[in-house]
């Protein structure tokens, strides 16, 4: 049931897709070996469908992309960072329910 609207970002296109985005962006930093990351994957998919056009919902695999997580000091996953106009607006660490992410997103939209 994974959503086609989730954007998979990498170290090389992070700047273009996230930092220079005209709308707010949520990036979910994840890895295959992380149980809680798998647990929230369906929530991320739901968000991508619901916020289509209002915010970009992205995922970044921290194994394949070491530079961006390092830049943002990420040492725990899942971590979700909400960006707006190239700035970090909010950061959520750990598997949380959809309501908590909705609240954070709606603060910046």
């Amino acid at each position, binding site marked *: 049931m994974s959503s086609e609207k989730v954007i998979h970002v990498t170290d090389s296109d992070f700047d273009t897709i996230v930092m220079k985005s005209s709308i707010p962006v949520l990036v979910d930093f994840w*890895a295959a*070996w*992380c*149980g*809680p*990351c*798998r*647990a*929230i994957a*369906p*929530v991320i998919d739901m968000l991508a469908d619901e916020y289509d056009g209002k915010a970009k919902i992205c995922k970044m695999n921290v*194994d394949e992309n070491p530079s961006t997580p390092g830049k943002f*000091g*990420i*040492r*725990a*996953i*899942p*971590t979700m960072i909400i960006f707006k106009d190239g700035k970090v607006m909010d*950061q959520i*660490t*750990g*598997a*949380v*329910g*959809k*309501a908590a992410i909705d609240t954070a997103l709606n603060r910046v939209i």
Partner: protein
Amino acid sequence: MDNTQLVIVGSGPAGMAAALYASRARIKTLLLERISPGGQMLLTHWVDNYLGFPDGIMAYELVEKMTAHAKRFGIDEMNGEVVSLVRVKDGIRMELADGNSMLTRAVIIATGANPKRLNVPGEQELTGKGVSYCATCDGPFYRDQTVAVVGGGDTAVEEAMFLTKFARKVYLIHRRDRLRAVALLQEKALSEPKIEPIWNTVVESVNGVNAVESLSLLNRVTGERSELPVSGVFVFVGLAPNTSFLPAEVKMDEQGFILTDEWMKTSVSGILAAGDCRAKPLRQIITAVGDGATAAFAVSHMLTTE
């Protein structure tokens, strides 16, 4: 879902076992889950002590197998979080966080527990920046670094062993002079060259600006204070039950674990409890599963004799 007979709150191993047994008893069952199935199994990498898997099994694979098995005989599932629950004339009425409410004949509370915090300065501020409660999630960020594990039980020792895959050195900080973990794990940990135990010691604060840099330690026997440079600290000092949403009529112990009889019945008729949220001597997947099966059997018994 007006004819729901049983709502199971939480889909860790206790909730899933209850769902399996309830569906086979043809009880109209709803399995309610806050985020996604698995409970604390999601926080560990590998399971070596669940019977039937002699070579051990990846925790996530076990979650997937249990989820498929729990659903096999037909149950309803829903995402939601219970905020309150009250005994009424015809059963139990529950209010959910999204504003919905439901009425059911019986409820099995299988909400589990969460890792306890140390409750020391710096811990909250540095969570996700070096303070972790999940070695399998965060361990790989500490390749060739020095980390500390706090605790002395099975989880602490198991996770310390897991962290030796990545870290250069793992300090195991325990407030007593010997581990509480099961003998086999103690033998493994104490013979692992990367693990160095620090006995009789508690953490007084976690220090660092944007990332963990050190821990302030106190030796409880000598009274000596010291500073330990580490780039990560993993906390496994026991569990706090997820039971704060329950009414006062549901009797609990002083830590908030639910008291039940051997049928998993609580002090309130129609409310049962199973798994780690229950007051019990051993919190493991294997005991959670037993609790879940017993609770579902008790509900079946209750519905047919009422």
